[in-house]
């Protein structure tokens, strides 16, 4: 099994391995294999298209957590310039699972906040698998209030399994930290645009996700509880995660249909990790459009619009 591919992608992996082999042989010998390679590449692309046309919500959920998926720092590198990372909640610590700083979107100064997962084992531990503690959320709101003072749009990038469920997090008021962010973000006098780039895990995601416009990458998910968590409570078995993913409606496509998503960003064939730069370009286009649109509203229009948007969720018909 090829670890770069998920289980449902293994047929693609096998074809890719074959193509690689032929390339090596082709390099070493006189025989021209380019026709054969071209044919196989065509086949691989068609197979990928076919598999990705019929992804189940559970498969999308696996893609959203793909170990090679672009993370916040990757998007920052590919979309923005002059990123200056800012650290700490001014009270307790800096949280590496939730990062932030100021950058430019083309020429425009913006505040960036995002969950950050690690790539290597050491980095994963340092980033706590993208699960912030209260100091992370408190840093985030500190930076957002700074953005309000300096009139910068806030762009948040959501990618977390959830807020960290640990003893220290509880001691320092995980609930309060999240609740406080929800309240302050609802009246922050600057546009807030949130993009789910990977996993949108519950309150830990929403704590940087109260926004004027919600963008979702095509293979990202957003839910009140992880499919595994939901399955183990309601089905009494984590094995039923795929049923839970289906029932809850967690994919960008499902959520757009339910009216939560303002733009769905198409990903390259095979997912954002196959061509991160191209995924970033598509996202940049949508971000720029949203910023331009929202910056035309004055503060009271912006806040009224945001409040009405929040009140509309689940309101009686």
């Amino acid at each position: 099994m090829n670890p770069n591919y998920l289980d449902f992608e293994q047929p693609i992996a096998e074809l890719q391995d074959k193509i690689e082999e032929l390339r090596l042989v082709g390099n070493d010998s006189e025989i021209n294999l380019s026709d054969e390679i071209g044919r196989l590449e065509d086949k691989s692309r068609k197979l990928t298209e076919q598999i990705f046309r019929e992804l189940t919500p559970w498969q999308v959920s696996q893609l959203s957590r793909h170990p090679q998926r672009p993370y916040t720092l990757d998007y920052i590198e590919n979309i923005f310039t002059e990123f200056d990372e800012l650290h700490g909640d001014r009270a307790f610590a800096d949280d590496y699972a939730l990062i932030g700083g100021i950058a430019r979107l083309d020429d425009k100064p913006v505040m960036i906040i995002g969950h950050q997962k690690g790539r290597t084992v050491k980095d994963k531990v340092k980033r706590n698998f993208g699960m912030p503690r209260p100091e992370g959320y408190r840093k985030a709101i500190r930076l957002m209030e700074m953005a309000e003072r300096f009139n910068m749009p806030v762009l948040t990038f959501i990618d977390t399994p959830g807020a960290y469920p640990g003893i220290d997090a509880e001691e320092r008021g995980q609930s309060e930290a999240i609740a406080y962010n929800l309240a302050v973000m609802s009246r922050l006098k600057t546009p807030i645009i949130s993009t789910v780039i990977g996993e949108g895990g519950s309150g830990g995601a929403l704590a940087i996700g109260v926004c004027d416009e919600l963008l979702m990458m095509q293979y990202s998910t957003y839910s009140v509880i992880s499919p595994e968590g939901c399955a183990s409570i309601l089905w009494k078995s984590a094995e039923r995660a795929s049923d839970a993913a289906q029932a809850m409606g967690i994919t960008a496509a499902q959520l757009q249909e339910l009216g939560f998503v303002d733009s769905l960003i198409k990903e390259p064939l095979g997912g954002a990790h196959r061509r991160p730069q191209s995924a970033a370009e598509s996202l940049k286009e949508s971000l720029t459009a949203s910023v331009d649109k929202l910056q035309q509203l004055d503060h009271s229009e912006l806040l009224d619009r945001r409040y009405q948007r929040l009140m509309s969720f689940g309101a009686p018909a």
Partner: protein
Amino acid sequence: MSWLDKIVPSMGRTRQADRRQSIPNGLWTKCPKCEAVLYLPELKHHQNVCPKCDHHLRMGARARLDWFFDEEGRAELLEDLKPVDRLKFKDSKRYKDRLAAAQKSTGENDALIAMHGTLNGLDVVAVAFEFSFMGGSMGSVVGEKFARAAELALEKRIPLICFAASGGARMQEALFSLMQMAKTSAALERMKNAGVPYISVLTDPVFGGVSASLAMLGDLNIAEPNALIGFAGPRVIEQTVREKLPEGFQRSEFLLEHGTVDMIVHRNELRETLGRVLRKMQHKSVAPAIQPAEPAVQDWPDAPDE
């Protein structure tokens, strides 16, 4: 285990079953903390506080509001709001059937009751979570009712009090329920900016999405003694950190020590305390003496023999 039980284990079991049956249904209950056998009418008379060990047992939403408000001039708000199964959610049971069962057993439409009335003469809006309705979970009806109660309090510039008891967001309403966290918090923030008081009373238990939104946003957060309150449930934390949780973890006293709640107030003193702080926050003069929380001692029957 005595030698006799070892020899005739089946006899022991029967005896235990008999003992349980000997408590007549509907009149007696056991205190979950001190295990004293309690006469239900007496327990109710003490607002569900164990007369033996002072343990605060859970209190239903309607009983809570009934006890909280002055008798005259109360009106229920938005009582007709009913939950909708937008996702046609089905796990081992249909959400629709779970709702119907909860509605039948509690007599309520959903897990939050909202009322407008007076507390010892002070005009207030109060909401209470019904924990026995699907664990007091917050779906769209709970969020909508809460937000509109907050909007009413803001419009009238009168305080809002919330008695929270909830396991968190309602999974069967998926992202709709997650968004109720943002919705309720946004409504509260408008009250806060207008200087209209909101007091969150945390009762046993408060977790998840309710804890991480409306329940922690009070101008004052007040907990009842020994209530279990946190973001993640103790079992989830134990599985994550793989350590034993410290004694008293996530109890009200732990939260007070860590600076999360302003005070812990005994249920007998809660009405008086709320009235006292709210009158100060609203620059009203001292309240007329409140009727005593504990009426004259009555003669209650003895517990049945065990």
